[in-house]
């Protein structure tokens, strides 16, 4: 069989660039836990499924009925202190807080074609009515798991496990040709 390389010889460089390191936690717990965490984290938690709340550099993203992703665009150096603060606030309440700052990397995709580009690998309906600003969900981008969060009408924040970053960005670059 001939070597199968030709179409990717001119592969575009991975795109878009990774966002700067950030602080991330996964928080499991009930409404009381969330209320307590809000005091320490400074951002409320959406009770509605698949919704994110954003305040300043910090956000909370609904991942499941009792699971949230806490995101702070500030780098993870102080993650330990932040975790301690959160743990103090939630003391006595059943919960699980796990630092995943380094587990994930993120990119932002924006512009008029952002939805089309994402639909090159993501099967969801990204029409603004169906996937409004502030909606977030775990989904797929081709063969990778991602967390997709619409931050503006034409901007999406995409989180993925770090070792999938190269694949997702190489594929985004390829798909972006077709838009």
């Amino acid at each position, binding site marked *: 069989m001939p070597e199968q390389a030709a179409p990717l010889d001119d592969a575009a460089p991975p795109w878009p660039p990774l966002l700067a390191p950030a602080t991330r936690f996964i928080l499991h717990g009930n409404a009381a836990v969330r209320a307590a965490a809000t005091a320490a984290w400074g951002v409320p938690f959406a009770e509605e499924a698949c919704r994110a709340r954003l305040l300043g550099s910090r956000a909370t993203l609904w991942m499941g009925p*009792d699971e949230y992703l806490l995101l702070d665009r500030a780098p993870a150096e102080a993650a330990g202190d932040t975790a301690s603060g959160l743990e103090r606030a939630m003391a006595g309440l*059943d919960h699980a807080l796990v630092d995943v700052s380094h587990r994930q990397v993120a990119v932002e995709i924006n512009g008029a074609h952002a939805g089309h580009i994402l639909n090159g690998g993501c099967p969801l309906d990204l029409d603004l009515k169906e996937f409004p600003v502030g909606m977030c969900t775990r989904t797929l981008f081709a063969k990778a798991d991602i967390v997709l969060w619409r931050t503006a009408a034409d901007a999406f924040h995409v989180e993925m496990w770090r070792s999938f970053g190269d694949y997702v960005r190489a594929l985004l670059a*390829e*798909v972006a*040709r077709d838009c």
Partner: protein
Amino acid sequence: MSVLRTPGGGRVDRERSLQFNFDGKAYAALQGDTLASGLLANGVHLVGRSFKYHRPRGILSAGAEEPNALVTVNPGAPRDTPNVLATQVELYPGLRAISQHRWPSLQYDVGRVNDALSAFFPAGFYYKTFKWPQRAWKSVYEPAIRRAAGLGRAPATADPDRYAQRYAHCDTLVVGAGPAGIAAALAAADAGARVMLCDEQSEMGGSLLAETMARIDGVPALDWALRALATLAGNPRVTLLTRTTAFGYFPHNLLGLNQRLGDHRADPDPGQPRQRLWMVRARQVVLATGAIERPLVFPGNDRPGILLAGAARTYLNRYGVKVGVRVVVVTATDAAYQTALDLHAAGVAVAAIADVRAQPVGVLPDAVSRAGIEIMPAATVLGTRGDRRVSEISLGRVQGGMVRPAARLACDAVLMSGGYTPSVHLFSQSRGKLVWNESLLAFVPGLSAECERSAGACRGVGDLTAALEDGAAAGLAAAPDPVRGSWRPLPEAGTTGGCGWLGALPQPQTTATDKAFVDWQHDVTTRDLALAAREGFRSIEHVKRYTTTGMATDQGKTSNLNALSIVASGLGVPISQVGLTTFRMPYTPVPFGSFAGTSRGALFDPVRRTPMHHWAQARGAVFENVGLWKRARYFPRAGEDMHAAVARECRAVRSACGIFDATTLGKIEVVGADAVEFMNRLYVNSWTNLAVGRSRYGILLREDGFVYDDGVVARTAADRFHVTTTTGGAPRVLAMMEDYRQTEWPQLKVWLTSTTEQWAVIAVQGPNARRVIAPLVEGIDLGASALPHMAVARGRICGAPLLLFRVSFTGELGYEINVPADFGATVWEAVHAAGQAHGMTVYGTETMHVLRAEKGYIIVGQDTDGTVTPDDAGLSWAIGKSKADFVGKRSLERASMRAPTRKQLVGLRSRDGRTVLDEGAQIAALPGQQPPMQLIGHVTSSYYSAALDHPIALALVAGGRTRLGQTLYVPMPRGEIEVEVTPPVFYDPKGERLNA
């Protein structure tokens, strides 16, 4: 300009002529031509040889139903594409195409002898002939048949093109942009729907592209269509997709659409995709797929120059091409009369209209009579003549049940119309129920299985006025808010009559000499179908497979109903009782490239790399794939092969120290007040007494009691466990844990979070390990008593937060440095640099495997295979004996799971001291056996041990632990290998080095 080209009109660009090449000959055509219309403009009808009899075949149709005109485009070139329809190939300057299935040339084909010998090739010929001898099928018959058959040749070079895939959603997907489809899209869009309208052709409009008479909303039909399409194009909620075939209808209104983006361009942009596969999820689907004109079945109906009447009209009105200069029309409907009128007006001589109906009356027959064209009622066709092109047709007249010869007419084209067969392919794919409509002589959509409706000719509403209204109603109903819609079409089209004909045309009692074809592409004749009925085939599915009718790449688009009718009359039952065969996707062939999309080369699969990957790559590491991960297997130095590199790496770890990237190990954080209870229920081990800051080797079973995964589990807080899993097992262990947590024990206060990628893990192993890391680690007492084997502590290293495990998978003093992944590369380099003073060597997975095998540590999935219990693997010590329950416990208590004859893990040593056994080799208790041998086990791991200077192996052997010291035999093709059964721990059996 060719005499066959009309002076004006149509959808071709008269100002842009172009040259193309077919079978090595250059031809002129116009921009907007298809390969078929371009050839016809040059008087070329002969485009291929038939599949079985190698008869000359011409262009039959103007669309996707074409059974004959299969060609290869760009033969031998990068975009070599076999089996495309000349009716769908858009010409561009310099296009090259060749005919297929002929040798040595289209004009003279040696396979033609099959036609003369056809009496020897009846239906089911292969089944009847190539049955014996059985062995000959594979070696002789099949290769010969495959060579002789074959449609086109698969390209031999890599596909240079890009292919894109895209998901899309809409309220209303309309398939087909003919009158009904356009009306549906307008109505749905008018009601505010998000609409997608796709059409397989280069231009939307369907039948209106060839319409000359009808008017809609006060303007000519085509002008109306163009205006409507412009309106739709200007609506941001509407997506128009031309050159886009809806090829598959998948569950829950997911439709596969294949869009051709570059095939019609002479010089496609290599950076852009050639085709795009759309996966469309639609709330509502409107199928407006139209109808396909049916050929008539009569002797010699396959000569080049004999084509469908509607196709001739399309060639004339859309492409400005006359299919001949003197034509005979054979019809069972009024539609062909319009073709005759249009051709007549264009100056083509219409010798006669032979109408199979006894009394053709109505607007169109009247108009034809006024034009002076002869109409022969109650007609039939007795045969045709002509070598490579029809030159004469013999017509007969049916009177009182008798067929008499009526006339022989010279002609260079015969236009036939047996009526229209609704295109119900997608409806049928959607599992909708078809119902037989006797007045339409057609199967039409009945009950829908999906949120779907059909409109227009595809459900038998073929009249233009009715089709427009039907389409508008369907589009409105398929909009999410129909009340908003107000648009209605105002057609003024005339109504056409006629119901068509099914099956063979009447013939005299004497058997006709020439074949009457039903399925052009698979060369199935009326005789084949009649034979199948006579031989006792009752089910249409069996007849189809026996005669191969409808089984060619065109899926019988032009042949199915005629075949059905012939079988039904052969069996003496109504068509509705014979039923219809299943329509399968794709509607027309879709290139593999579209399905592959971007999944090729570097993008085929995600490649997962650790933070230390680039360091290893720069050091010349040889990588292996472990799941999606790339792991460094060994680090060869100049002149070393794997064996030498691994031996060196092993010696370094045993004598000094080694550094190893263990990042890929799965990690799960189990957190919550009930974390210890959760772990007790899940793993075989007891966790209650595990102190914070200590770890334990954990084993996870399935319910059946067999080992599923293993790994070191640390208790990092009273309510927190850091669980490690095998690299490949990480996702399935997390899934299994979540399954039990959510469905079996939802009351437990415990949560799971994957932390596999949070941590980079650097294993430092060997007698010098402590000396290497001591200067780097802050806040942890590394002393043997402060941090003994299996202890865990938090501290810092090189400025990074550190979770330090004292663990060993080598049997040496060892540590695993866990740091947040961003720190992985710098900490690794610092440790490696610090290690240079202590003989540190980097090692890979192969060395890791040897070192652990020397210690008898198993690898789940290599030394276990889903049938190994903890006791089989020698691990029953790990089971928490006092625990009330754990996953798999009940299964372990079954008698057969405790049988002393079960296969148990043992070590093997080759008696000759040098032969490395093959992994997977079988083991016999007795020497010199002949097959069938009695085998008692197999080798699971086998290496040459540098530390011991002899081969070692792990094996699963029946009753293995009772055989220590025995000699067993490993039969191999090159002879039997004698082995001694040993305990599985070869090196440092007392574990003194571990606790150093």
